[in-house]
């Protein structure tokens, strides 16, 4: 192992902050909420020492607005919250989507609905992260299942935000956020970071939303540069100024959706864990992926070989991963801590007649390996 790497024992939420700092984030705005508060606390300690800013706002609406504002001023910015906070952030998340402002929202999920079981885990924001905020849009959502992934995927979340100029979710959960594991923190020069490009055209020709001319992400000028810029939540054209023409609206809405949906192969991150020729595949993510790992270690389970499809990116949905499984005809079990959110998407790809089973649990207690084994015995075999 390279001697430059630092081995540390830390909490998932702490690793998120380390990842954000490594990615170059220097601005955090948020509002305290369990089980995400450790991220805010660590940000308040570390950011000012690095010349950055920790802003504790009056609520989550303000937090998301401040994050967007800071991003427009040139900072890599982020917030951390949980389900109730995400609900409040949705309107201003829409501003980031519409005005194409890169930023990261960390959602450390807890049990709902509403205040729910505020200190207990859940994975029930899976659809909120995809569809939350009105209007047509797409979503980039990454889901860590280990402390190492809290670091790695946070770095990636910032990179994807810059690449697609879109707010990116890191969808963690109470278990992943609070568990402690060893992580390897790379040296600064070992981290691949996408740095925001500055425009190099004549200021009069700057088109902040022109994705077509160069075929790459148009640079987002920071407020205060010679490139004067209008960020607009209203329908706008390439200049950022309002444009209500129906053809322009069609083009912009399609673009905001397609720039992400058509990049699914680039964004998708999943891994088949266990034997390559299993009798059953458990599709899972986040904390549930960790309990499912035990089944891989306990092979065979009830006489059958079990593999996992661990999803590290949830949205845009990686249809291709499931098309491969479908060709093999192997039964799948979608295990998640909600009443069946991701299973709907898996079923869509697999089709109505495919053996696609839904293992759900929504009481604040994780799905145990024993429950998974029993489910396979009763429902699949």
């Amino acid at each position, binding site marked *: 192992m390279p001697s430059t790497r630092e081995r540390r024992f830390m909490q998932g939420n702490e690793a998120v902050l380390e990842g954000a700092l490594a990615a170059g984030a220097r601005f955090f705005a948020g509002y305290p909420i369990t089980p995400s508060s450790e991220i805010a606390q660590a940000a308040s300690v570390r950011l000012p020492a690095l010349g950055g*800013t920790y802003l504790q706002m*009056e609520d989550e609406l*303000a937090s998301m607005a401040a*994050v967007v*504002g800071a*991003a427009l001023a*040139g900072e890599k910015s982020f917030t951390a919250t949980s389900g109730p906070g995400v609900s409040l952030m949705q309107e201003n998340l829409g*501003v980031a989507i519409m005005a194409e402002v890169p930023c990261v929202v960390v959602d450390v999920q807890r049990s709902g609905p509403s205040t729910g079981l505020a200190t207990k885990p859940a994975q029930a924001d899976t659809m909120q992260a995809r569809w939350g905020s009105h209007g047509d849009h797409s979503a980039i959502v990454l889901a860590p299942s280990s402390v190492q992934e809290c670091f790695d995927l946070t770095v990636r979340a910032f990179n994807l935000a810059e690449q697609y100029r879109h707010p990116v979710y890191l969808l963690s959960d109470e278990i992943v956020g609070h568990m402690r594991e060893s992580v390897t923190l790379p040296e600064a020069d070992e981290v691949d970071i996408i740095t925001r490009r500055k425009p190099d055209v004549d200021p009069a020709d700057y088109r902040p939303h022109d994705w077509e001319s160069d075929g790459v992400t148009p640079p987002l000028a920071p407020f205060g540069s010679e490139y*004067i810029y*209008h960020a607009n939540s209203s329908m706008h054209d390439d200049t950022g100024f309002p444009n209500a023409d129906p053809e322009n609206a069609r083009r912009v809405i399609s673009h905001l959706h397609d720039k992400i949906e058509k990049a699914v192969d680039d964004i998708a991150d999943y891994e088949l864990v266990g034997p390559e020729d299993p009798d059953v595949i458990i599709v899972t993510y986040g904390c549930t992926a960790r309990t499912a790992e035990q089944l891989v270690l306990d092979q065979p389970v009830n006489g059958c070989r079990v593999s996992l499809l661990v999803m590290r990116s949830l949205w845009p949905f990686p249809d291709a991963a499931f098309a491969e499984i479908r060709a093999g005809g192997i039964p799948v079990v979608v295990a998640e801590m909600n009443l069946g959110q991701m299973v709907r998407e898996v079923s869509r790809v697999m089709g109505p007649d495919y053996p696609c089973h839904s293992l759900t649990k929504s009481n604040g207690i994780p799905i145990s390996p024993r429950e998974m084994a029993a489910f396979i015995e009763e429902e699949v075999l």
Partner: protein
Amino acid sequence: MKALAPYLKSEDLPLFWCAGCGNGIILASILRTFSALELAPKDIVVSTGIGCWGKADDYLKTNSIHGTHGRALPFATGIKAANDDLTVLALMGDGDCATIGGNHFLHAARRNIDVTAIVSNNFNYGMTGGQYSATTPPHSYTSTSVYGNPEGVFDLCEVGQAAGATFVARGTVYHANQLEGLITDAVRHRGFSLVEVFSSCPVYFGRYNERPSPVEMMKYWQSRAVPVQRYRKMDEDSRVDRVPIGVFHRDDRPDFNTRYRDIRARARERMEGRG
């Protein structure tokens, strides 16, 4: 007009606001302030809310963020906290600032973030058809208070001062010369500054309340407004139907960014000490 050219998208004139609306007067006062202070358009960021006044950025050649209803201040706060070199204004209506965004108004004032809030107060929601807001006077009529407004009002200047704003002023669209001075002082002030502007909305608020013409609305402010120095000496009876205008409050409490610079220095010291 020529002096305003660097800031105004004159090709988009005429303004889309109704005839007799006060917003054009407020916008012109802001542009004259930019010109008087010789601010470069690239160093200005204007954060707008939603509503009639929220469209003001459409006419500006400065940077702007047109965000969501009531949230102009938190967008502005993020911008100013991230780059202290920028001159940041938040343009809000009474719906934006006093009503849906009331919480942000309180906390921006408390935080004393160096942002200038220019509130165009026309006492109702013009864009959505003249409904009552948190500044609609009791008993007055709007499209959702046809029997009279049952609610009380916020006096934005009193609320702002109580919440910690370090520059508080009020003007009207009739007193245009004074207004430019108030806005200029507010922009120059380091800290959270509020300029509330009593505006005119003949099409909705005026029509519902027996002042349906632009001239009547202007005369209303001409006859009601009293300089604050004089108002403070008036007895209670004389104050009936009079409103004070001018600079109400000014203090030099350090703004958020100044204080946060100290925080950064302390954090650095602590981290270095830890070695």
